[in-house]
């Protein structure tokens, strides 16, 4: 059962990613990316990270990608002209990508991985993540809040009408 779900999710994640970067219509591209993100959320559930999975859907699919969709619609980019790449370039990029992938993949999975560790109780639960966030990772957590604030201020500064 889990294997089956995993295979399907892997396939949709990969298809979603490839279609997201290759599709000419940006709106459809965003939707494929959402498919990819949701499939990854399924993986996170399988990997005992339900909290991250929920965040993936709420934050990534629900907020970030909606923002993308917003901008694309606002600018009406569905017919954004893009230089069509030639066949040679396509072939070269596929070959280049293939080589890059094989190198990366070989380095990442070439040898026998050490055995998996036993999972502690409540692994990946909201409570355990929350405790870590508010104790060990308190400083990064606060940093993140400043980061989000500054991103918000920056976005307003760049897009608001008028000068000072």
């Amino acid at each position: 059962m889990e294997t089956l779900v995993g295979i399907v999710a892997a396939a949709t994640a990969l298809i979603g990613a490839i279609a997201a970067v290759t599709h000419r219509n940006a709106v459809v591209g965003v939707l494929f990316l959402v498919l990819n993100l949701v499939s990854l959320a399924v993986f996170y559930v399988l990997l005992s990270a339900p909290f991250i999975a929920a965040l993936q859907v709420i934050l990534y699919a629900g907020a970030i990608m909606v923002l993308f969709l917003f901008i694309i619609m606002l600018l009406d980019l569905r017919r954004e002209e893009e230089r069509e790449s030639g066949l040679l370039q396509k072939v070269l990029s596929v070959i280049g990508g293939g080589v890059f992938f094989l190198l990366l993949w070989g380095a990442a999975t070439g040898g026998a991985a050490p055995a998996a560790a036993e999972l502690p109780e409540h692994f990946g639960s909201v409570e355990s993540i929350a405790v870590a966030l508010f104790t060990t990772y308190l400083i990064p957590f606060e940093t993140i809040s400043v980061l989000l604030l500054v991103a918000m201020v920056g976005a307003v500064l760049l897009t608001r009408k008028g000068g000072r």
Partner: protein
Amino acid sequence: MTFAAVLETLIKIGVVFFVALTAVAYLTLAERKISGWIQDRIGPNRVGPWGLLQPLADGIKFMMKEEVVPSYAHRPIYMAAPALLLISALSALAIIPFGDRLSLGGYEVRLAIADVNIGILFFLAMSSVGVYGIVLAGWSSNNKYAMLGGLRASAQMISYELGLGLSLIGVLMVSGSLRLSQIVEQQGSFSSWNVWSQPLGFLIFMVSAFAETNRLPFDLAEAETELVAGYHTEYSAIKFSMFYMAEYVNMITASALMATLFFGGWQLPFPAEAAGVEGNHLALLQILCFLIKTGFFLFVFIWVRWTLPRFRYDQLMHLGWKVLLPLALLNLIWVGIGVAWGWF
């Protein structure tokens, strides 16, 4: 997962869907009846006794009507958008505990489809996915009214999700869990209902829920006078009805959540012993209690719709960002103090 568990889940899904969809059908009737009552007229009364068969007639009409797809619509997305909306709306029902537990011949059944560790987050996730249905419906129709409606709706839902989320945190702080069954159990007695300790949180949740469901007074996305019908202008027949169904399902979810989070869920307002029943009878009584609470909030939804005028768009955004958000933070501080001093 054992076979029994799978079967149990499937049966629960079936029951919940049946109840929810029937409720949707009769909510449309209730809406029209109540609006008739508020506006001092009779409302539908021709099909069946007191118009009781009206939803059925409406359903048949929706199915028989001609389907129109605008020629410049983006077809696949145009087709998928209403389904996406309805699916996400229905999925959110999965986490709501509508009762404690039934025992059927020694086999214990928990009365919630999925009582998961991240319960509330699942609801938020589904409601944020629902935004796609609306945005995409508006965009794929290739109609400027639909597009504006879609953008408005999504901007509105995103803005109000903040207030919604922050008002939920107050509840979570008191219960210490995201699991809905635990939140209900923690409100065991009438005096421990969350609404007493955080009335402000409840109000924010309710207002945000109204905005989330795109209902009046926050139905700017489909404001007839400005945008024809908003994101579903171009939809007809069964797809149009799916938008309607999604709206009502969302109303049911929101009402059920209000009952669950702030009004003790399926808990009776008096000690269970006082009811004089136990076992499955008690469970049924609790389900009834849950249905009454949910029904009451559904009534409030309809009542408000026919009473209040519509907001202007900038007023809506103003309310969300400059009123509800600070108030939600205030509520959070209040609950924080309460939890720290052990009041709740």
